[in-house]
């Protein structure tokens, strides 16, 4: 657990995060995120992570995933890597976070440099660029499908649905800066959640 000490602070509490799961081993976390890293084409790590870690492995819930996405996007850095840190931390504390991030990044690092070396030997044909467009389109599809699946639904959740659609309108369509939009919409949404809890 030396990683825990290195990453800052006592580990006792970090380890207390895991008991809700039947502790998943570090090697399994590393392997799962390595596989996620080397197969997540198209750049949207979050959508792939949802497919693998939530839908396939059930390592975290929809709610935990969305909380991780939110914090990961509000904080500086890559949203996908930030989400990976949080999932690893949930699964196995600080060591889990280290295993997940190393797993996620080590494969793509080697692959991307190897591709660049190949590219330096004379570029790519237009067909390769077309293939990349095709892959990018599928990646966007995966992102949309994930986002749509996670939209709030049901008559009792019209308020949250309105918040989600307002986020899409402001950030996605009008291209307003993300942080102020989130800082305006999040308090409204949290207030809604509090009120609903009280009336329930």
């Amino acid at each position, binding site marked *: 657990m030396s990683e825990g000490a290195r*990453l800052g602070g006592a580990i006792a*509490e970090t380890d207390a*995060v895991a008991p809700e799961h039947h502790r998943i081993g570090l090697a399994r976390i590393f392997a799962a995120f390595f596989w996620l890293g080397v197969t*997540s*084409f198209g*750049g949207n790590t979050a*959508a*792939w992570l949802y497919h693998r870690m939530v839908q396939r492995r059930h390592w975290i819930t929809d*709610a935990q995933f*969305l*909380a991780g*996405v*939110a*914090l990961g*996007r509000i*904080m500086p*850095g*890559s949203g*996908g*890597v*930030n989400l990976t840190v949080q999932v690893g*931390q949930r699964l196995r504390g600080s060591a889990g976070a280290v295993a997940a*991030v190393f797993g*996620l*990044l080590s494969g*793509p*690092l080697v*692959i991307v*440099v190897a*591709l*660049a070396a190949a*590219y330096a030997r004379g570029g*790519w044909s237009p067909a*390769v*660029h*077309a*293939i*990349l*467009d095709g892959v*990018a*389109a*599928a990646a*966007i599809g995966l*992102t*949309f499908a994930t*986002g749509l*699946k*996670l939209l*709030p639904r049901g008559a009792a959740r019209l308020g*949250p649905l309105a918040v989600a659609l307002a986020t*899409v309108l402001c950030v*996605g369509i009008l*291209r307003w800066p*993300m*942080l102020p939009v989130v800082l305006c*919409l*999040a308090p409204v949404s*949290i207030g809604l*959640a*509090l009120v609903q809890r009280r009336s329930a």
Partner: protein
Amino acid sequence: MPDDFRTLLALVLVFVPLSLLSIGGGASLLADMEHESVAVRGWTSPREFADLFAISRAAPGPGTMLAALIGWKAAGWAGAMTATVALYLPSSLLVYGAARLWGRWRGSLWHSAVERGLAPVAAGLLLSGGIAVLRISPGGPAVWAAAVIATLLLLRWPRLHPLALFATSGALFGATALW
């Protein structure tokens, strides 16, 4: 090799601030990286940067792995690793600390209210991310159409493996280009 060392140090000095200050995820990071590596440091020409961007799109993993390529261009393998660590380590430590602090309040009423309140915002951000990528995609209307078809297929058949869909879509686009 003092020159190599100086380049590595420069990579750290560029990517650590990017790591800590670039809010808004991949898209804003890419814009900042382009500015630094082309205009400020001269590690790549604009044309080279565009090539590196295309290469990073072809590789799996986070889109921001482009940082590794800039490091590679500037200082070989050592540069690739330095840039990767400098870009991801500071922000990862920050988010780790925040997540742990946040986890301390798990179980309280407002903790669950905040998480439930953030969920729809997060779903909206995911969808917005898809729209942002669609917008900067160089492929035009064909990409838009394929993205919509892929979305519908995945929603209709959730068991469909994304990799199968990615391979099919890539092959179809490649074949059309060859024709």
